[in-house]
């Protein structure tokens, strides 16, 4: 199955000159942890996660009502074409340890694909490389 058939369309985005507070408000109201950052014409510029806000801005004590998304987002990011297959998407997620991929066609953001969207084609979280992905230093069994 193609990414186009699995992705979520009509994704809310923000612009690089919105503030971190505005990004957090949108995360709260949509109950999401990641917001794609786009410019005019839906050209994808980067992505901002709740964790980026905490680690890159709150930890440094910045004024989140003035700080611009531009300075805290991840600008270089992995994306996928809507014509790619679900298996290709799972491979990318595993390689880069991501749970969500922006879907980009000719520079325009057309959707977002989350790891859960792949479950309909029997690709589950652990198989995409996440089984223990959140554990920083897994213990080793003593054999």
């Amino acid at each position, binding site marked *: 199955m193609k990414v186009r058939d699995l992705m*979520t369309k009509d994704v809310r985005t923000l612009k690089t000159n919105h503030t971190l507070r505005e990004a957090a408000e949108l995360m709260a109201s949509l*109950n999401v942890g990641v917001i794609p950052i786009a410019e005019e014409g839906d050209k994808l510029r980067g992505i901002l996660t709740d964790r980026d806000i*905490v680690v890159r801005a709150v930890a440094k004590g910045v004024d989140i009502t003035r700080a611009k998304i531009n300075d805290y987002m991840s600008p270089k990011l992995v994306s996928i074409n809507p014509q790619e297959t679900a298996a290709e998407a799972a491979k990318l997620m595993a390689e880069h340890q991501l749970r969500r991929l922006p879907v980009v066609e000719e520079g325009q953001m057309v959707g977002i694909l989350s790891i*859960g969207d792949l479950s309909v084609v029997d690709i589950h*979280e652990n198989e995409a490389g996440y*089984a223990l992905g959140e554990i*920083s*230093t897994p*213990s080793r069994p003593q054999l």
Partner: protein
Amino acid sequence: MKIRELMTTDVQCCAPDASLQQAAQIMADIDVGIVPICSANDRLEGCVTDRDIVIRAVAKGMDVNTTRVGECMSSAMVSCSPEQTAQEASNLMADHQIRRLPVVENGRLVGIVALGDLAVVGIHENEAGFALSEISEPGIH
């Protein structure tokens, strides 16, 4: 296997009157998403997650340097005892959809156990109920 043998005992926690900036600094420094909040004598008062900071403080425009972590923490929280088994901890994590549990003995925080710590006894992420936890609301991003 008992939680006592699996938990991490060297836990960084915050006092309730620490600022959000200080809690976030700990999250950044040791690469975690949750920090236990302890008052005097390691008494566990609650926990704060990176998401709590974003939703409860940043979204409301609070000053992260003056807002106290005690105002944003979750105080009603799940914990386990060091005498409980790995299986019991795994059940708690699955029931509450959390990946880390504070370990409390006589009201004092004595450690933290992460889902990954349970891997040595053959409990893996999906078995603890996490495999599909992110698809509860498909289509919402």
